[in-house]
């Protein structure tokens, strides 16, 4: 019917026909332009500004002072703490998310309720989650975790006493808040793995662990890459949750940027730390993409 209508109309002139074909390529691009203008101005321009500011002071057009000054203040330590949290939180989130997603990949009574519960933390604002966890794992030997442990006559524990304890508390709280997103992505991945592969693996004598290694992991590869990229980048960005729970001890890159920015030091010192943060995100993304695309 559509073809008949087209044939019935006047035949297009050759030039108009060429334009028409050309337009097929250009027209969809016009729809994308607003978004490109928007992200150029609001994302990439500030990103480049950060890098430029990081090499400037109000009086010098190019200097390494901001970096040197931050290194003296402990930049390497902040990087280390940030990497510690990123690695710990990713490991915990993925471990939990694999368990939850593998459960949601089955069918069982009560599945809808469990799926809803698994997504609930997304609905809790980050600052609220941070405050709740600061009351669960506080530094003064009180808090809800100690209340729970006192039932079995354990504790009290001073959770944030050591740097690794404090960073570990942040890892736990952040994993609670953010595992759901990984679950969403992995559930989609599980749905894409044919059930017959598991049956075949079971017939070949593969137990749950080997099935996970040889069927689940390869099947989920692209989904894992996506989840790692999204979560890893956001993890480097972790800020309010950590600041509410542990303040500046130990210090993370984001918290330091915020404190430098708000302390009246101007944007130059803060930009140097921000540029380092950008660099870490860039390296992380590069690594994940390189590992993810390797066959």
């Amino acid at each position, binding site marked *: 019917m*559509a073809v008949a*209508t087209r044939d019935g109309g006047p035949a297009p002139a050759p030039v108009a026909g060429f334009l028409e074909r050309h337009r097929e390529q250009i*027209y*969809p691009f016009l*729809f*994308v332009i607003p*978004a*490109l203008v*928007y*992200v150029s101005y*609001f*994302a990439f321009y*500030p990103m480049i500004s*950060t890098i430029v500011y990081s090499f400037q002071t109000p009086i010098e057009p190019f200097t390494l002072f901001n970096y040197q000054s931050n290194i003296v203040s402990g930049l390497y330590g902040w990087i280390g703490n940030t990497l510690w949290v990123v690695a710990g939180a990713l490991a915990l989130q993925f471990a*939990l998310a694999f*368990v*939850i997603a593998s*459960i949601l990949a089955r069918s069982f009574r009560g599945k809808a309720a469990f799926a809803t*519960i*698994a*997504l*609930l*933390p*997304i*609905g*809790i*604002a980050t*600052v*609220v989650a*941070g*405050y*709740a966890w600061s*009351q*669960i794992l506080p530094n003064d*030997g*009180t*808090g*809800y975790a*100690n*209340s729970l442990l006192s039932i079995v006559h354990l504790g009290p524990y001073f959770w944030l006493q050591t740097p690794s304890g404090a960073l570990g508390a942040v890892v736990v709280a952040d994993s609670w808040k953010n595992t759901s997103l990984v679950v*969403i992505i992995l559930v*989609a*991945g599980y749905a*894409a793995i044919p059930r017959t592969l598991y049956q075949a693996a079971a017939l070949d004598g593969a137990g749950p662990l080997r099935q996970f290694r040889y069927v689940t992991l390869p099947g989920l590869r692209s*989904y894992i890459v*996506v989840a790692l990229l999204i979560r890893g*980048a*956001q993890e*480097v*960005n972790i*800020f*309010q949750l950590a600041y*509410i729970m542990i*303040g500046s001890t130990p210090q993370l890159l*984001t918290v330091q940027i*915020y404190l430098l920015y708000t302390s009246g030091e101007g*944007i130059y010192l803060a*930009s140097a730390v921000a540029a380092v943060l*950008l660099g870490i*995100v860039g390296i992380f993304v590069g690594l994940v993409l390189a590992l993810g695309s390797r066959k």
Partner: protein
Amino acid sequence: MTATASASARVDLRPPAPINRPPVVTAGKVGLYATIVVISLWLLFPIYVIFLLAFNETKYTIFAARPDLLPTHLTWSNLVSGLTNTAVPFLPSMYLSLEIAFIVGALALAIGIPTAYGLSRLPTSLAFGLTTIMFIVNMLPSITIAIPITVPFIKAGLYGSPISIALTQELLALPVTVFLLVGAFQGLPKDLENQSRVDGAGRLYAVFGNLVPLIIPAIVASFLLAWMLSWDESTFALILYNPTTPTLPVQIFLTVTGRGNPVVGVAFSFIATVPVIILVAILQKYLKGEDLAAGVRG
């Protein structure tokens, strides 16, 4: 001898004997439900703590050496003092957050729908490149964007305005919106658009009049997701806030990090959280990993 061997070989080829199934399944079921209960408790406990903090008397929560694990001393006073406290204006903050979240949702659709349509119709390689750009935007650390963007906002006299905060939060919402909607557009048969154009509809009408109504569920989901991202967002909002009225998350952040009574903040955040939790429950079926994953898989 040979007959027996071939018989046993035939038996080996069969799927696992069904007789063994029932007890295995039952043991597995117990393990499954035990795991589900443990994970559910882990996921629900902090939410329960938020409830206790909001509605238990403070001497049994934040001022207790052993915070009470049961809601034994319920009170509205935390909430009431939040509502009546003029030093920390929560209600204006809540209105501001609502306003910004709606702007972010509307902008996400205004920019996101055309973008997603364009991406779904562009040649694959070009679309992949542009999707990658959106993906990178999604991964940039907010705080590294927020600080330099203050400069043009101050110059334009927009610093602290709802629109300035919405425009920055859109960086988080737009990529997700685009990923969701590209998937929806790609799911439509291409003939639909061609047909409506052949039937005399203009290109724009073919897209917005004929295609868009077909992906309303994805559009609603995108709007709500963008709305939620903004409602929760606190980094851009913290760097760009107007000191007299910060957004709700920033107000809570400032309150619990040392300005005022944190319980008031938590009482409010509990109230503010309830609609979002309901939203998540509704959105559950739309929150598909395939759509999020579409970005990188191209």
